[in-house]
């Protein structure tokens, strides 16, 4: 991130180790350019990247009633749940007793991402491969089971695996072991925003000398104790109709639906990807920034817009270069208002299409923003923006060009992903198209207010 704070004509991107990434949006193919070469998705509306993406474009929702136990005693009976994950089919038997569901999902998603990238860890330098993930809720169900044993049967009945299945670092540790990745590993937590912080740190890790980073985030905490913990954060919708429960930017917004899953991305330096003959590059992680909101009651402005400006500046792009924003989409009126205001301040009224595919999955804590990043990269690949499901009455005052109804065909060369976390965390990430043989698309400044969708005009 550049040292300047105000976006606009920016200084060069954050480069600790050399000038190769260049300035002014001229992304290249050098060692300092971070490109995504593989995507693995475990989402409530689809396991596997293409299954999920097709379901997303068809508008299939993964928000469903909780059926594993009697949830009628809770005010919330819906969640974004993955119904069909058969861990034994994807993981060796030895991993199962020592892992929570969240780690099984993460390890599987990492496997899929690696397979998608074509990278073979056995052929890459062990210290040049790293794992950087986000996880905010740990191995919650595993811990619930062990805590129950502890309190009902006694401490001698607690599994040895509780000592590491529980903690937030389990996913990074297990993925690094599975693939022999001995480079700098990390785990970042900032509630929902941490998912982008992980991807930002993956890029930083490449600049520190790694050539491939397995990054992203996956979450799952939907045993009864996990559900109750989700509820305690506030803002969870109690609407029972899956098509009405999570309506961000809608006049009927009644909170969010929490969900499980996320995405794992293979992030490589462009040079390393080229050197191994990577068969595909989804796009570049061109910009990233994080901010924190002022303390409650300070009267100072919130930090989301600033994070977005810093990320744009880091990417060397102007607001007019952004073709789509993947919104944080809290689903709570006040927070939707704040995000809409930030987007309008940056892009002007109806100034940029806003896509909210998480209306089909719920909010996945640290897994959500990596999944949005996957959607952004696939919108670059396929030239189409997923629609916000079920949003029929946009809040007029928001003046957002919400993509809704049907997916919208659009050539996407750069996308902005926004995320906010409980307590005041804000993160923003810019992905940019990489044109075959020419490196990433060069930023060209266009007017920041563009023709907008007819239906959203006031």
């Amino acid at each position, binding site marked *: *991130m550049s*040292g300047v704070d105000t976006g606009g004509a920016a200084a060069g991107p*954050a480069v*600790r180790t050399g000038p190769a990434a260049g300035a002014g949006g001229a992304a290249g193919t050098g060692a300092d350019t971070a490109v995504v070469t593989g995507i693995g998705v475990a989402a409530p509306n689809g396991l596997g990247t293409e299954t999920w993406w097709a379901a997303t474009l068809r508008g299939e929702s993964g928000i469903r009633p909780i059926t594993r136990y009697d949830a009628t*005693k*809770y*005010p919330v009976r819906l969640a974004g749940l993955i119904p069909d994950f058969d861990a034994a089919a994807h993981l060796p038997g030895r991993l199962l007793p*020592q892992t929570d569901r969240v780690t099984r999902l993460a390890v599987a998603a990492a496997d899929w991402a690696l397979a998608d990238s074509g990278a073979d860890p056995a052929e890459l330098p062990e*210290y040049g491969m790293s794992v950087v993930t986000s*996880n*905010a809720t740990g191995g919650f169900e595993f811990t*619930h089971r*062990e*805590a*129950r*044993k*502890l*309190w*009902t049967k006694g*401490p*001698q009945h*607690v*599994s040895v695996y*509780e*000592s590491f299945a529980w*903690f*937030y*670092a389990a996913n*990074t*540790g297990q993925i*690094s*072991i599975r693939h022999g990745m001995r*480079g700098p*590993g*990390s*785990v*970042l*937590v*900032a509630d929902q925003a*941490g998912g982008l912080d992980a991807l930002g740190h993956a890029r*930083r890790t490449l600049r520190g000398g790694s050539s491939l980073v397995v990054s992203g985030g996956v979450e799952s*905490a939907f045993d*009864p*104790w996990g559900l*109750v913990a*989700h509820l*305690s*954060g*506030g803002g969870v919708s109690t609407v029972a109709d899956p098509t009405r429960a999570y309506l961000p930017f809608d006049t009927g917004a009644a909170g969010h639906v929490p969900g499980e899953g996320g995405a794992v991305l293979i992030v490589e330096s462009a040079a390393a990807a080229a050197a191994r003959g990577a068969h595909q590059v989804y796009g570049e992680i061109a910009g990233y920034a*994080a*901010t*924190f909101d*002022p303390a409650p009651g*300070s009267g*100072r402005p919130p*930090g989301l817009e600033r994070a977005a400006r810093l990320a744009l500046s880091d990417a060397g792009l102007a607001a007019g270069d952004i073709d789509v924003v993947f919104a944080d989409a809290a689903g709570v009126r006040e927070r939707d208002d704040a995000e809409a205001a930030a987007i309008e301040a940056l892009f002007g009224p109806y100034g940029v299409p806003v896509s909210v595919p998480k209306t089909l999955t719920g909010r996945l804590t640290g897994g959500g923003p990596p999944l949005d990043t996957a959607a952004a990269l696939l919108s670059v690949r396929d030239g189409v923006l997923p629609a916000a499901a079920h949003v029929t009455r946009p809040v007029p005052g928001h003046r957002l060009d919400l993509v809704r109804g049907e997916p919208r065909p659009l050539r996407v060369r750069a996308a902005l992903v926004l995320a906010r976390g*409980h*307590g*005041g*965390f804000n993160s923003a990430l810019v992905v940019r198209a990489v044109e075959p043989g020419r490196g990433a698309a060069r930023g060209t400044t266009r007017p920041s207010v563009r023709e907008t969708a007819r239906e959203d005009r006031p």
Partner: protein
Amino acid sequence: MNRSVAITGIGVVAPGGIGRKAFWDLLVSGRTATRTISLFDPGRFRSRVAAEVDFDPALYGLTPREVRRLDRAAQFAVVSARECITDSGLEFAALDPHRVGVSVGSAVGGTTTLEQEYLVLSDSGRQWEVDGDYVSPHLYDAFVPSSLAAEVAWTAGAEGPAAVVSTGCTSGLDSIGYARDLIAEGSADVMLAGAADTPISPIAVACFDAVRATSVRNDDPAHASRPFDRGRDGFVIAEGAAMFVLEELEHARARGAHVYGLVSGYATRCNAYHMTGLKKDGREMAEAVRHALAEARRAPDAVDYVNAHGSGTKQNDRHETMAFKQALGDHAYRVPVSSIKSMVGHSLGAIGSIEIAACALAMEHGAVPPTANLHERDPECDLDYVPNEAREARLDTVVSVGSGFGGFQSAMVLTRADAA
């Protein structure tokens, strides 16, 4: 941009010593803060020893509202953050809040509160479908550990990048490493960085019992933590926090700040071997030490002190002895190596930061803290572990290491600001 990072403020909440002065007094005295667990009844547990903090929140400036809202780990984080802010002499209100960030390490976050709430809502474990009607409004802050970073950010008025780093038992080094990166690359000028963990709870004690990693010297708790000693039988679980003001060096110099030292090198590696096991050769830890020294532009023989992970498990102490020999060559036999876990125990994600506080204070006071309870060395641990008595020494270059479940191996190099 590659800017130097200075430590200009230190705050510590450690067993046997709250505040950096009391903490340092404990370390140089060689006294131990390990004792029989008092935070809950440990009667049914295999290991009943811990290093606890006698912490009266009111005494350390927390209001009743803060005490109600904050998990014990968050209380420790806030108290140590306030101390380091005061110690730094930095006028935070006059800073651009956008240029101040936060990085807090924690392995298990809000475990204390989670377990207490669980007991209430599950009727002491009897109900799988826990009661949702009487949930504490603060449960989510314990559920998601990033609340630690939020609390510290509010304490400092920080509006720059903020996150929790949770890499198990290396969290406390890695959070400082993360903050170092953010300042070095220009994302912040000042970072509140450190770590807090309060894992002395039944579930944590039980799982370390199961994996038989903790000491069972229950009849002699003061001597239970015995790193490098032949009679060691595991680590002693602990709690604590340490926070620092990290500041871009020119920023610190421009205001004439006292600089404890520079964070000159940092590296982390994964052993990619086993979630709990360590390979005998210490290869990845050695790699981390070598890389951190290279970043600091220091030769191995320039190292004046190594603050060991020294957890006191059989496996660890041999593992890192091998790692030091690999990374430092013959100099490993000459450099003093000590483990303060012998005195303050192993506070999981917090200890890495507490040990960096020990290193910075060691440089400040010109003394190496000892390894307590070291009376008969393990024959396979054949370095100079500074047994039982602190030693005066000028320290220009100090290395601290950490090792944790998940395979994480981290190393950090501190250097004196006035040393070449």
